[in-house]
């Protein structure tokens, strides 16, 4: 039986899929939504109010690049008025002093700036955008000067892991309170570019060593969150803290999803916040109920002592690698497909295919 439904902790709003950068591991779907289909300001404000009403505590403003929306400060102000902790997830290439002042005045709590490397040569190549790195450094300074909390998002992979130590140093120099060192997760664009991104086992071990040492040296100065790649894992991650347990995502056009990659799963119908309230979708939408809790699980997840620790891992990864969204995530050592996943990682990381298929609207 499933436990009673708890209130969700956080909502991620993809305000737009427009973005000047072309990162080949973008978390947006391959089929990007168009500007003309984006929700308007009034609808986003209603969504924020409804989400606060069912108990979310954190509002993440994301994209695409959320700063392409001129109504961002108005939405931040509204979220703050609803008592939410407000977080801007941005490439920061559009941040300037005037816009920083507007956002700070609106009550923004925290800014997360993505970095693609520790220097312009690597970072601008990965982002597919000239001068991105320099703009980000300037933007980090603006966030710090405005007195807001700053996190650096360092997405790491085979082509920038040699700069990991330098990226941690960059976070300290930029005055960030926190760095998220996140190995690429292979969905959507990243899955398409997996062979160019996946690290070798030796690279992963070195990265883990660097993070462990930095955590000890920088305790109380810099918080380091570390996301490891599933392909070399022994146990799966509790993806999203469990399907539809803590978190939901809203696309630019208003589709409400249990995770940003959920649209890759066949047979699920994702309802729109323009047609039903956030609370009703959270509690009753068939897509949210489908993999919620443990009732849907088959062996080896069913009856496993870890069923309520990792919640079966990731549904999108199970689908991508086994063809069955209801299977145990192959990141788990108990999955019959576990060895296949590890073999894929070893083969692709050693193949030296480095060209990217950059993110773009098709």
């Amino acid at each position: 039986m499933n436990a009673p439904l708890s209130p969700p902790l956080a909502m991620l709003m993809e305000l737009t899929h427009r973005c000047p950068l072309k990162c080949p591991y973008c978390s947006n779907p391959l089929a990007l939504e168009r500007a003309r289909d984006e929700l308007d300001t009034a609808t986003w404000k209603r969504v924020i109010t409804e989400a606060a009403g069912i108990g979310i505590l954190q509002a993440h403003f994301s994209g695409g690049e959320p700063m392409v929306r001129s109504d961002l400060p108005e939405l931040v102000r509204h979220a703050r008025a609803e008592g939410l902790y407000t977080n801007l997830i941005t490439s920061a290439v559009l941040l300037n002093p005037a816009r920083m002042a507007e956002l700070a005045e609106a009550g923004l709590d925290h800014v997360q700036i993505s970095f693609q490397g520790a220097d312009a040569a690597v970072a601008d190549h990965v982002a597919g955008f000239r001068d991105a790195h320099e703009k980000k450094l300037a933007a980090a300074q603006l966030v710090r000067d405005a007195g807001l909390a700053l996190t650096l998002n360092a997405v790491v992979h085979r082509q920038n892991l040699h700069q990991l130590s330098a990226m941690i140093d960059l976070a300290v120099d930029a005055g960030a309170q926190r760095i998220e060192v996140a190995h690429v997760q292979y969905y959507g664009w990243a899955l398409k570019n997996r062979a160019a991104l996946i690290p070798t086992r030796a690279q992963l071990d070195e990265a883990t060593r660097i993070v462990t040492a930095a955590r000890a040296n920088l305790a109380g100065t810099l918080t380091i969150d570390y996301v490891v790649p599933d392909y070399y894992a022994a146990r799966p991650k509790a993806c999203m803290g469990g399907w539809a347990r803590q978190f939901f995502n809203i696309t630019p056009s208003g589709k409400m999803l249990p995770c940003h990659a959920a649209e890759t799963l066949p047979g699920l119908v994702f309802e729109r916040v323009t047609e039903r309230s956030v609370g009703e979708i959270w509690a009753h939408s068939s897509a949210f109920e489908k993999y919620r809790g443990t009732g849907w699980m088959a062996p080896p997840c069913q009856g496993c002592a870890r069923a309520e620790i990792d919640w079966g891992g990731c549904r999108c990864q199970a689908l991508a690698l086994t063809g069955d969204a209801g299977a145990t995530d192959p990141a788990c050592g108990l999955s019959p497909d576990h060895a296949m996943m590890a073999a894929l990682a070893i083969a692709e990381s050693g193949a030296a295919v480095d060209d990217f298929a950059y993110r773009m609207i098709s």
Partner: protein
Amino acid sequence: MSLTAASVPRLARHVRFRFDAARNCHVLLAPERVIMPDAIAVAVLECCDGVVNVAEIADRLATRYEAPRDAVLADCLEMLNDLADKSMIAS
């Protein structure tokens, strides 16, 4: 950089502490973090105004809860140092 009895604790600038009606409890909100402090931690956090030091907080709570002052001080320091390690409390 541990807090001592003489330290004056306050919430870090990027942290918010408030009551949450949906869960009927207090919450500490920080980047990608939600902490639900227990009743004792709530009592300590409510005293963290950036004016009084930890010794004064312990005095106040020892009186309020009729508890041994040294034990209260030790509990306050442990809890506040734990949050300071998470960059949620500054002094």
